[in-house]
């Protein structure tokens, strides 16, 4: 089932949580709403579920307007951040709940419910835990029970609020892969909220990056990572170096470095900021013809496939992070305190935002 969000605005008294949000989710897609806390992603998810109403705008499921339809009649499954399992019910009863509360005319027989719950327990690999109480489960197990409970009502849309937020790092990675596989099998249109960019990039078909109640960018993980649409997306997707410079006639000047702007970007002359990821940096022992940023090598972490190093710019003391392959690292043979020349392979330039 497809989801359409049309011009949705949400205000809480004086605070505007969402500004004119427009979003289309295709049937069977897995979408991540990514952003820092307070960006409105959870509010958007709750509006999709019907837990909140939009101040203005409309929600459509399969091209049918559901904005005013009651939460229980939307056919959505919702997995709460802290799971919201019914603490006085067994795992089995938690999963069966959605079926048991149906009106008599559409309620399945006890045998059917039984069968269905066992199926779901098997799906989430918790067959042997049916008669336990939520308090007796680990975080990861609770998460899977919450998911099974949401799936029991055969929702056409699955919504998950920070599904891995409360778990420790290892369980988190396992569950991520498991969720991705599950989605491939079930193919339910799914939207999940996260503040963890790795999670969004690894699991989702498309990522919606949000900031201050607005959508900054919608795209596949590759698109948002490789071609961030705004400084915010660049910043938020993480591990990025920022340079302040000036644009003049299609070239940008950062310290002693002077680069031609890559494309016809239409950036006006004036102050600008450039972004470059640590692995997109070339390191040299000598300044080249185009000039380079001079820095001193600081802390070095030669662990794993790449060597990470911190460098301090000699002109303004700002920190630069770099990543080079082990092979390159051996060739350069740098050590702490040595002078190095930094040149970005590609620098993404934006006009300096006016505060």
């Amino acid at each position, binding site marked *: 089932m497809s989801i359409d969000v049309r011009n949705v605005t949400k205000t809480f008294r004086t605070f505007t949580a969402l500004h004119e949000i427009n979003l289309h989710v295709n049937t069977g897609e897995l979408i991540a709403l990514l952003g820092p806390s307070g960006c409105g992603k959870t509010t958007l998810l709750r509006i999709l579920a019907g*837990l909140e109403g939009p101040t203005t705008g409309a929600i459509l499921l399969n091209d049918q307007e559901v904005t005013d339809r009651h*939460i229980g009649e939307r056919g959505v499954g*919702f997995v709460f951040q802290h799971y919201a399992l*019914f*603490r*006085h019910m067994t795992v089995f009863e938690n999963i069966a*709940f*959605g079926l048991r509360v149906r009106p008599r005319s559409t309620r399945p027989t006890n045998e059917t419910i039984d069968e269905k719950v066992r199926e779901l327990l098997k799906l989430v690999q918790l067959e042997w835990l049916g008669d336990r109480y939520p308090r007796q489960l680990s975080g990861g197990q609770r998460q899977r029970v919450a998911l099974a409970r949401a799936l029991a009502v055969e929702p056409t849309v699955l919504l998950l609020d920070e599904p891995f937020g409360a778990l420790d790092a290892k369980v988190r990675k396992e569950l991520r892969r498991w969720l991705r596989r599950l989605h491939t099998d079930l193919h339910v249109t799914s939207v999940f909220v996260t503040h963890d960019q790795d999670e969004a990039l690894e699991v989702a078909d498309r990522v919606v990056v949000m900031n201050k109640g607005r959508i900054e960018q919608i795209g596949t993980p590759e698109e948002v990572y490789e071609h961030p649409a705004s400084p915010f997306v660049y910043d938020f997707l993480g591990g990025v170096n920022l340079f302040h410079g000036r644009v003049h006639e299609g070239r940008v000047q950062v310290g002693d470095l002077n680069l031609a702007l890559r494309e016809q970007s239409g950036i006006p002359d004036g102050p600008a900021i450039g972004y470059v990821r640590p692995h997109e940096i070339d390191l040299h022992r000598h300044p080249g013809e185009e000039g380079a940023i001079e820095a001193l090598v600081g802390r070095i972490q030669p662990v794993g496939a790449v060597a990470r190093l911190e460098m301090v710019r000699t002109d303004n003391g700002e920190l630069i992070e770099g990543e080079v392959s082990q092979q390159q690292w051996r060739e350069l043979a740098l050590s702490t305190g040595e002078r190095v020349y930094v040149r970005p392979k590609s620098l993404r330039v934006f006009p300096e935002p006016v505060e």
Partner: protein
Amino acid sequence: MTTGVLSLDKGTSRIASTVAEPVLVRLALILVSLTFLGLFLFVPLAAILFEALKHGLGTYLASFQEPDAIAAIQLTLLATAIALPLNVVFGLSAAWAIAKFEFWGKQVLITLIDLPFSVSPVVAGLIYVLLFGLQGALGPWLAAHDIKIIFAVPGIVLATIFVTFPFVARELIPHMQAQGKDEEEAALVLGATGWQTFRRVTLPSIKWSLLYGVILCNARAMGEFGAVSVVSGHIRGETNTMPLHVEILYNEYNYVAAFAVASLLALLSLVTLAAKSLVEWTSSVEQKENRP
């Protein structure tokens, strides 16, 4: 062996003395506490039993066969049977509104709910006399329609409701506030109706607090004296509750019977304390298990 124990004691007490008091101080404090509690709680409690059984078990049991005593017990049970369910419904209703919604004037409402606790029982009785009594605001109208509230059973029920008004609500409100509304939202998303959500999700998770409130409410309803005394009119066999019956017997110097009925009320309070401890213990065990 004695020296061993002593030296061990000395050793540990020297280490522990940073965060504990010397043994003598401890003993003194325990002694002071137990004496104070013994004098004020234990001795009076024992005195009730002693006075009631002074002339043997036969006289004691005979006190309960008096028609007036039976009538008093029945009236107490009746007033409680009306006041308790009403206050439970009120408590659930108030706690639902206060704990699950954000609205203007909530803090004022919480304070108002506690109000009956700070009103003297005598004043509680008085306000109903002023409203429904013969000289009261509605008195002439009630008299004209031959409805008796004051010096009759309805007045006793009203006074009982007033003094036990906050018990259930004030146990439920903080508990339900702490629980939040995630579980209710989850139930609604799963298609439950409002009533199903309350019945199957909310109610089971507040059962201990509810029971706790009911126990306290029940004890006060059965034991109330001041407020009921003002509205009762002390008509033997008709408007006397158990505590009022105790007063009448006592004032007639019928001490054995007075203490016999009193012993029944004292037993009720001991059962209340035991039930209260049990509920506290059970719910704390459950809470511990609920912690991840």
